[in-house]
């Protein structure tokens, strides 16, 4: 993304301004709560208590967080390459198909710790495959990746409905879902970990996928900032001209970046499909692919930002579900609004506050003892 405004110190650029944007987003969300006739402060308290107040709530919060880490990373990796991957939803959906193939074939044969890497590989492979065509079309034919990935979300949805009401549905069943996996294809819950802290996980579906997500975050950090490929991806994202001039193979980088992004989105399916429902259901990603856009923008594309951003949205999802019990006027759709507001203020309007903050900073600098760089900050 271009930054046509004056340069500010890093702590303002990466700390203060994103924080202010987030505050504005939540203030506007608070306004909506007011319009609906509830108290925003009370709603926030109920939400926090629902998300962190007891063991089961924490378990659900972290379960949602796990999904959002994957989809946030999927969007962020593509962002670094200057590509906007809106297709996380479809890629995750297809990832679930990969898992189902492994789980139905090997679920009764292998133990879970052998099935996990196999299913993860299949999920990443299917997710990556779904990103391949948009990536190739962007690289070779110049078709806009935003449009193609949106189209592929719809195509994925149609394809999966076709499979789930047809070939994948067990005979005699009315529900559009696959048969339930055997024990070998269900991932263990993390209740043991919770008992260490004297808490109970209850019915929360938090499972070992959390560690896969954390490993994926580490992988993305190493990839983007510590490898040659990552350097090439960032170069392409900042300046395609520079990348071309440096002799980097544009097509290869675009395709590889999108394959990695698609693979990460596909891995997200591990969490609900193998970790919670033990079967492939219609629309199981339930918007997680889109939450990834907000998570990536809020986390500024860095795993260190994406993890807390994913936690925030995990909290909103779980807290929002609890909130709906106490305040029926505020259903889970409130999260969709907050998600939109975060994308708007942290993404599209990221420069709205910048001139003001820059001018204020410039004035403070001039009044302060060190006035050397004064005036530099004013746009």
């Amino acid at each position, binding site marked *: 993304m271009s930054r046509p405004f004056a340069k500010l110190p890093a702590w303002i650029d990466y700390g203060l301004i994103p924080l202010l944007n987030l505050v504005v987003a939540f203030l506007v969300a608070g306004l909506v709560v007011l319009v*609906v006739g509830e108290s925003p402060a009370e709603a926030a308290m109920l939400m926090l208590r629902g998300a962190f107040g007891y063991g089961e709530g924490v378990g659900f919060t972290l379960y949602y967080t796990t999904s959002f880490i994957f989809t946030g990373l999927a969007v962020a990796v593509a962002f670094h390459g200057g590509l906007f991957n809106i297709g996380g939803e479809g890629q995750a959906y297809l990832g679930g198909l990969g898992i189902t193939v492994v789980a139905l074939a090997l679920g009764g044969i292998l133990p879970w710790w052998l099935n996990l890497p196999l299913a993860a590989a299949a999920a990443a492979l299917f997710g990556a495959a779904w990103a391949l065509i948009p990536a190739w079309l962007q690289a070779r034919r110049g078709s806009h990746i935003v449009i193609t990935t949106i189209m592929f979300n719809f195509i994925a949805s149609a394809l999966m409905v076709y499979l789930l009401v047809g070939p994948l549905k067990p005979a005699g069943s009315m529900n559009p879902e696959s048969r339930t996996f055997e024990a070998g294809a269900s991932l263990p819950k993390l209740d043991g970990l919770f008992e260490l802290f004297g808490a109970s996980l209850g019915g929360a579906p938090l499972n070992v996928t959390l560690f896969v997500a954390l490993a994926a975050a580490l992988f993305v950090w190493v990839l983007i900032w510590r490898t040659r490929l990552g350097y090439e991806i960032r170069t392409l994202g900042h300046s395609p001209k520079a990348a071309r001039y440096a002799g980097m193979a544009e097509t290869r980088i675009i395709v590889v970046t999108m394959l990695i992004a698609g693979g990460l989105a596909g891995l997200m399916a591990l969490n609900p499909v193998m970790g919670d429902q033990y079967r492939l259901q219609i629309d199981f990603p339930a918007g997680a692919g889109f939450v990834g856009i907000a998570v990536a923008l809020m986390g500024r594309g860095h795993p260190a930002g994406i993890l807390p951003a994913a936690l925030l949205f995990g909290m909103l999802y779980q807290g929002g579900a609890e909130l709906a019990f106490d305040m029926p006027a505020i259903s889970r759709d409130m999260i*969709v609004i907050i998600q939109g507001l975060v994308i708007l203020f942290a993404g599209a*309007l990221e420069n709205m506050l910048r001139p003001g903050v820059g001018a204020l900073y410039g004035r403070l600098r001039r009044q302060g003892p060190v006035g050397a760089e004064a005036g530099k900050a004013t746009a």
Partner: protein
Amino acid sequence: MDAALAINIVDSTIRLSTPLLFAALAGLYSERSGVFDISLEGKMLIAAFASATVAALSGSAWAGLLAGVGAAVAFGLVHGFASITCRGNQIVSGVAINFIAAGLTVILGQSWFGEGGRTPPLTGDARFSDKVLPFAQELSGVPVVGPIYSGIISGQNVLVYLAFLLVPATWWVLARTRFGLRLRAVGENPAAVDTAGISVAWLRYRAVIICGVLTGLAGTYLAVAQAAGFNRDMTAGKGYIALAALIFAKWRPVPILFACLLFGFLDAISIRIQGVALPGIGTVSVQFVQALPYILTVVLLAGFVGRAIPPRAGGVPYVKER
């Protein structure tokens, strides 16, 4: 295939194409001015909700129309502010607006009417009713012309006629007026327009407002003419199909008409085709027909069936030289 069925399919094709036509023409104005807009979906949705709400409360479809247009223009101005004034990423802004509209319509609908996001059913004057054109009854007996006139052309509602009239009007505005020339220029080369002493920002804002008005009409049509009230997520991806039609038509008004009719036709036959064996193909699954607009758009974007080239300055915020 008998004539009655053919008339029936053409009639529902026209009804299903209308919202696509409004939305695709809306996108045309915005994108030809250099502002990419994937928030057609969100603007249609908020307009559908606002129009159904006001129509239900006031009992007047025309008041609903005003509210729907107003809501869509307001959301359009948010998109304009983000992408023109703040020079933000236009795709990101569009995504945000789609989410805000999806959430807001349900939250407000649930809070005001308490029916799971639905608005009260509209009856009588609160809906745009079908207009029977003069002589429709008398001519229906005449062979060929009669059924076409009375079964297809007559008996649509005001908004359908408006949508189809907007196609030549849009062509005329874009191709034959000064405003249209400048609008197209600002989407291709804003610096040249700026040099001529014309405000790039104001031109683009006007395009964004027109886009809001037309998406407002699209949403109003869905909730107040086609259906009788608002349902949660009632646009169901129509904004994206309209976007696909816009690209499929290579950003030109008359081809947009045919693209929308094609996608409306696919929608109309997708229900009827279930379980029917086509000669030479066999049975086609409903899901395949539903996915066909998206598949066709991808194939077109790939450049295998003629090339779709977007306005050159699309998606790029204009920075005035300093």
